[in-house]
């Protein structure tokens, strides 16, 4: 049988693992796909390629399909998110100088305390804090701003958000251009190793189940090619499930390090996959459970409520609001397509396509198509719930 040639764009980050595993193991071939992975130099370039129909699929930051569909930023286009590729897996860090000032003020780094850490950040007295993020429309920026806004000392002009491409983040810290940064692995680990940065929080300490990357495609192409989309969703789902089994992690790290897709050494890949994070040179690594999640608790399900949460943050970030933002955003997250792809395989799926984001402080059993399944935890550090059902 001839395989359907498919091109999927990505950025070389550890969380592109489901795509690489789908290609290398080869779950994509089992689904009749001849999958090529096309590395891109920047999020803008990847966005342009997907918008102009030069790639079939793309590994993108979860807010990107929504921002594009809402017409925000360069190259707007109707883009769908077909599934969530990973939850969390990013880190927040500070420059060596800021770390020293924070410690002088009595702060110690437990790597899991957003409230005390925010107080120490603003208590250090450096204003404005120059904060590096990889892209204006990123979960990195949303979580950072959500977290910092919660501090009583927060004022908008106390932080200055700057976009720095991930591979350049460590250098920007070393050059003294950034005080704080949020970046996806392995670039946080690289900043510790090469620029003496200190990692102060994993993203899951702010939101325990933040959708980080999604599989994106042009809406019109999706409508014309449902079978190919189903096959791709199934292939990535199988790869994610394989990645979710802890006994496969050593082999996964080996495959990621050896394949030419990432061009990263295994010691840069390991921390994200194992959750064993070295936050500062010379200190023992800290174990962070569910650091980067590929599977389990319906991790891959594109919840429409996640789309709406993102749309809300976009309203705040861009000071733009339109009555149709909410409906456009929720339609981007294609839970319908995800169901259509996986139901025939007998896979258990949630009964609803929306949930109250932040409601589950612990793993909780909920109704599913086959009875019951465990979801969560998906709590926010401040205990907030986003019940945004209309």
């Amino acid at each position, binding site marked *: 049988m001839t395989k359907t040639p498919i091109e999927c764009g990505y950025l070389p980050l550890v969380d592109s693992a489901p795509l690489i595993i789908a290609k290398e193991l080869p779950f994509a071939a089992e689904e009749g796909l001849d999958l090529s992975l096309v590395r891109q130099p*920047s999020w803008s370039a990847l966005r342009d390629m997907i918008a102009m129909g030069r790639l079939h699929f793309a590994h993108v930051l979860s807010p990107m399909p929504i921002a594009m569909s809402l017409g925000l930023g360069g190259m707007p286009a109707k883009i769908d998110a077909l599934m969530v590729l990973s939850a969390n897996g990013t880190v927040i860090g500070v420059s060596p100088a800021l770390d020293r000032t924070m410690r002088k003020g009595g702060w110690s780094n437990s790597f899991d305390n957003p409230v005390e850490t925010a107080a120490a950040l603003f208590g250090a007295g450096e204003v404005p804090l120059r904060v590096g993020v990889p892209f204006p429309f990123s979960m990195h920026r949303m979580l950072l701003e959500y977290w910092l806004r919660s501090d009583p000392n927060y004022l908008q002009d106390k932080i200055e958000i700057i976009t720095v491409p991930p591979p350049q983040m460590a250098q920007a810290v070393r050059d003294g251009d950034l005080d704080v940064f949020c970046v996806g692995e392995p670039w946080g680990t690289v900043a510790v190793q090469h620029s003496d940065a200190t990692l102060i929080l994993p993203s899951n300490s702010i939101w325990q189940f933040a959708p980080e990357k999604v599989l994106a495609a042009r809406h019109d192409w999706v409508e014309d090619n449902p079978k190919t989309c189903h096959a791709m969703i199934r292939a990535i789902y199988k790869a994610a499930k394989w990645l979710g089994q802890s006994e496969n992690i050593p082999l996964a790290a080996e495959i990621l390090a050896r394949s030419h897709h990432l061009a990263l050494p295994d010691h840069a890949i390991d921390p994200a996959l194992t959750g064993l994070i070295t936050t500062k040179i010379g200190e023992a690594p800290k174990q962070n459970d569910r650091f980067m999640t590929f599977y389990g608790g319906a991790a891959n399900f594109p919840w429409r409520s996640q789309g709406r949460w993102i749309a809300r943050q976009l309203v705040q970030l861009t*000071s733009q609001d339109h009555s149709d933002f909410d409906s456009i955003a929720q339609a981007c997250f294609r839970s319908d397509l995800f169901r259509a792809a996986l139901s025939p395989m007998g896979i258990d799926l949630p009964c609803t396509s929306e949930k109250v984001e932040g409601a589950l402080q612990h793993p909780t059993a909920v109704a599913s198509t086959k009875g019951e399944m465990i979801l969560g935890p998906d709590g926010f550090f401040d205990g907030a719930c986003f019940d945004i059902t209309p």
Partner: protein
Amino acid sequence: MSKNLKILVVESNRTKAKKIIDALFEGGWSDVVVLASASALDRNLREHNPDIILIDLANPDRDTLEHISLASQAKSRPVAMFVDHTDEEMTQAAIEAGLSAYVVNGLQMERIKPVLETAIARFRILSKMQSELDAAKLALSDRKTIDRAKGLIMRARGVCEEDAYQLMRKSAMDHGRKLIDVANSLVTAADILQ
């Protein structure tokens, strides 16, 4: 037509930057500034106040430029060139050539178009030259590896050059591999065994 447009080129490769300036100069645009990187771009934008920014599609600094273009407080902010998709053909041509452009002061399309056409033509030549150079370099290094592998077989089996080549070719075909891959394995194995 007025050609007094201020053009900013973000390009770290000096040879490439010079070729782009030359092309623009020949086209009649003389007010061109080159920046090696987009760091401190915000300050540079205020200083130079360009009308158009040209940047390689593959340049990671684009994400920084993208962010600046979204910062609403900036008085004259750059806007990604192809936002309105009015000229689909030109957008496709620019992407094909590896060029992205940002317009700063809301210029009219008829003033921008000639600049873009000139830049697209030059980017196309540059990317063709680059890929030819890459291919030539690769072919040269493949050739060296294959020659080394041939030498190894000739010594080990006591055969002539042509026979060594045929042996390697047969092994490649039998295993469904490329000739260069077989040669690479031989050379690597020989390095270990030495």
